[in-house]
């Protein structure tokens, strides 16, 4: 029996992968997050609005999702305390737009900057255009994702780490001309997707309801699917196929849990197991292991597209289950689906509505508990806040990466760990791990 350890880089933070080998196969796998910062502890004792500034700092890639989750959690506390207040359609839609934009910039960076270089190495393709830092395609991807972050900053001031969502609405008050600029940046991004990623128009792609999409596709999505099939990635990386989506993306995706009879999600049913995290006795990572009614769940683009009945992702899922190929393609699909959705939402905005309506609450008196649940790039993000007389008494963050990359419990391996068992090469193991869109700073905040 052989044990290998390797540090995975080119991601937000570091992750170490420890593999136990037996007769040339991975017998056991440990996903190790060596960093811990203690955000939840820092929040304790602070006035509750400070969460809007502190929680986005958990992550430089999905910080905006943390902001919206904080705002929603506080709003739920207000609502439960019987405080009547409402958000204008404009404020709601702004938040939806900026959340989606953050997902878009993430997915495109993930694919070209993090996943593709390892993928090319594994499938043995040498193409200078895709080489990190120097390749033409590589820098085009950065420029494309910058279009989206520019659009996001136009709406929310800056990215990352703005705090433009506050209980009762948003702080920004755009001129129509600014919105038009954001919209044309997004349209330019769509052009990039059509030319480079899918090779066909996004409408055309979304109109493919059968496996014919495989014939229509061109571009890097096609390149990925072809090479992935040639190299057996349709069999690699299968995990439990337990899917969970706790948030919603209006109007396409609603909360759902695969093993449950009804499509309802109850955050209070989550238990975070600590035995195998450094908080417990057999710890090897700073992440906890969230379980929903005792079971491990995968969250992210694959579950979202599965629940949304995306015919192309469902075709791959029926044939290849929750393998690497399905997981990666689901993430690519979100680029297409969410860019068109975001444009629709931008069109629907009425800028002359109010941005913010002050909630009639005495900030020194508010008490109660609330959840804020959003769909972030990597899946369901949950914030739970307990406020006592305007001060945070307890704050708990359950990140998507804790679901996907968290450790085992006494019964079940973590989702990513399970996906690595039985693989025959170290390179493939890293690639499968990459497929989950690894981020260590969220996994252990």
């Amino acid at each position, binding site marked *: 029996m052989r044990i290998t350890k390797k*540090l995975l880089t080119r991601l937000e933070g*570091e992750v*170490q992968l420890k593999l136990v080998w037996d007769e040339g196969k991975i017998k056991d796998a440990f996903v*190790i997050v*060596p*960093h811990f*910062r*203690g*955000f939840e*502890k*820092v929040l304790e004792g*602070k*006035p509750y*609005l*400070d969460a*809007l*500034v*502190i929680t986005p*700092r958990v992550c*430089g890639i999905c910080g905006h999702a943390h902001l919206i989750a904080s705002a929603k959690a506080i709003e739920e506390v207000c609502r439960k305390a019987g405080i009547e207040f409402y958000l204008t359609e404009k*404020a709601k839609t702004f938040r939806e737009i900026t959340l989606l934009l953050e997902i878009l910039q993430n997915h495109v960076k993930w694919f070209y900057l993090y996943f593709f270089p390892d993928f090319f190495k594994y499938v043995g393709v040498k193409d200078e255009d895709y080489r990190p830092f120097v390749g033409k395609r590589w820098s085009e991807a950065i420029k494309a994702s*910058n279009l989206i*972050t*520019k659009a*996001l*900053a*136009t*709406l*929310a*001031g*800056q*990215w*990352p*780490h*703005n*705090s*433009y969502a*506050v209980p*009762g*609405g*948003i*702080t*920004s*008050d755009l*001129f129509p001309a600014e919105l038009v600029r954001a919209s044309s940046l997004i349209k330019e991004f769509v052009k990039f997707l059509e030319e480079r990623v899918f090779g066909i128009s996004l409408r055309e792609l979304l109109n493919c309801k059968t496996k014919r999409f495989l014939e229509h596709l061109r571009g890097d999505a096609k390149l990925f699917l072809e090479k992935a099939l040639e190299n057996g990635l349709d069999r690699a990386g299968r995990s439990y196929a337990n899917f969970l989506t706790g948030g919603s993306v209006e109007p396409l995706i609603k909360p759902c849990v695969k093993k449950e009879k009804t499509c309802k999600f109850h955050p209070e049913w989550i238990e975070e197991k600590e035995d195998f995290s*450094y908080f417990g006795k057999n710890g*090897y990572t*700073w992440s906890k292991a969230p379980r929903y009614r005792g079971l491990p769940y995968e969250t992210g683009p694959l579950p979202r597209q599965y629940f949304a009945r995306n015919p192309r992702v469902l075709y791959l899922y029926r044939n290849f289950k929750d393998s690497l190929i399905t997981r990666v393609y689901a993430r690519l699909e979100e680029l297409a689906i969410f860019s068109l959705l975001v444009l629709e939402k931008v069109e629907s905005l009425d800028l*002359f509505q*109010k*941005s*913010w309506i*002050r909630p009639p609450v005495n*900030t020194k008196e508010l008490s109660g508990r609330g959840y804020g649940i959003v769909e972030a790039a990597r899946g369901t993000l949950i914030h739970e806040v307990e406020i006592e007389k305007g001060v945070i008494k307890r704050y708990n963050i359950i990140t998507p990466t804790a679901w996907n990359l968290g450790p085992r419990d006494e019964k079940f391996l973590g989702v990513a760990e399970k996906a690595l068992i039985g693989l025959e090469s170290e390179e493939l193991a890293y690639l499968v791990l990459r497929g989950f869109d690894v981020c260590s700073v969220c996994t252990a905040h």
Partner: protein
Amino acid sequence: MKNLEKPFYEIVRELANLSDFVVALGNCAVYGNIPALKDEKIVELQFRFKEKEGLLGKDFRSKRGLPVVNISGCPAHPEWFINTLLELKHRGKVPLDELGRPKEFYAYFTHDGCIRVQYYEWKVEAEELGTKEGCLFYKFGCRGPLTHSSCNRILWNGVSSKTRSGQPCFGCTEFDFPRENLFETKLNMGIPAELPPEVSLRAYIMMAGVAKTFTPKRLKRKLIDEDNEEAPNET
């Protein structure tokens, strides 16, 4: 960092002694910031908050003779970072302030270049969030006039900034970020408890008195009066 073959701080020390320049990027690396708040063991490259108690020691100089060059901010602005690196490469030096930050970027305040600056000058307070009008310094905790940064000079993502989009500045380039009660200005008898550096209370009160007495009326109106917007012809 647990579980690595060699402790992280040893790696950093070894690399620092081999380097022409050492640059700390972001408030965590510069001052300790959020991770250091609840953990006394955490120190940064040359500082812990504003004290020079960092890993490399207060007298550290890299091979080319500079202390740690601190690009503070949460996040640090990519352009300040890249331009500092390029300047170090081409000129071999860069003027630093007492916290090790390049003066070219940190001699300014967030306030400089803010599009709400007239409201500040004439003491017109923002009464609500979510509007283009009013200054956020008086009620909403804006640290713009107290925070060293170039946020409103070199814009974020090339397009905007916090104060331009109606958010108060939270002072994220300073050693004491995150302070407490970030959305509220602490007042002493109606006057902001903290005044901009080197502004005396007497000067502030006199200026405020004059400004409030003579505020141009246009600053009390909306920038665009929606009711006056010409309705499109109905067909």
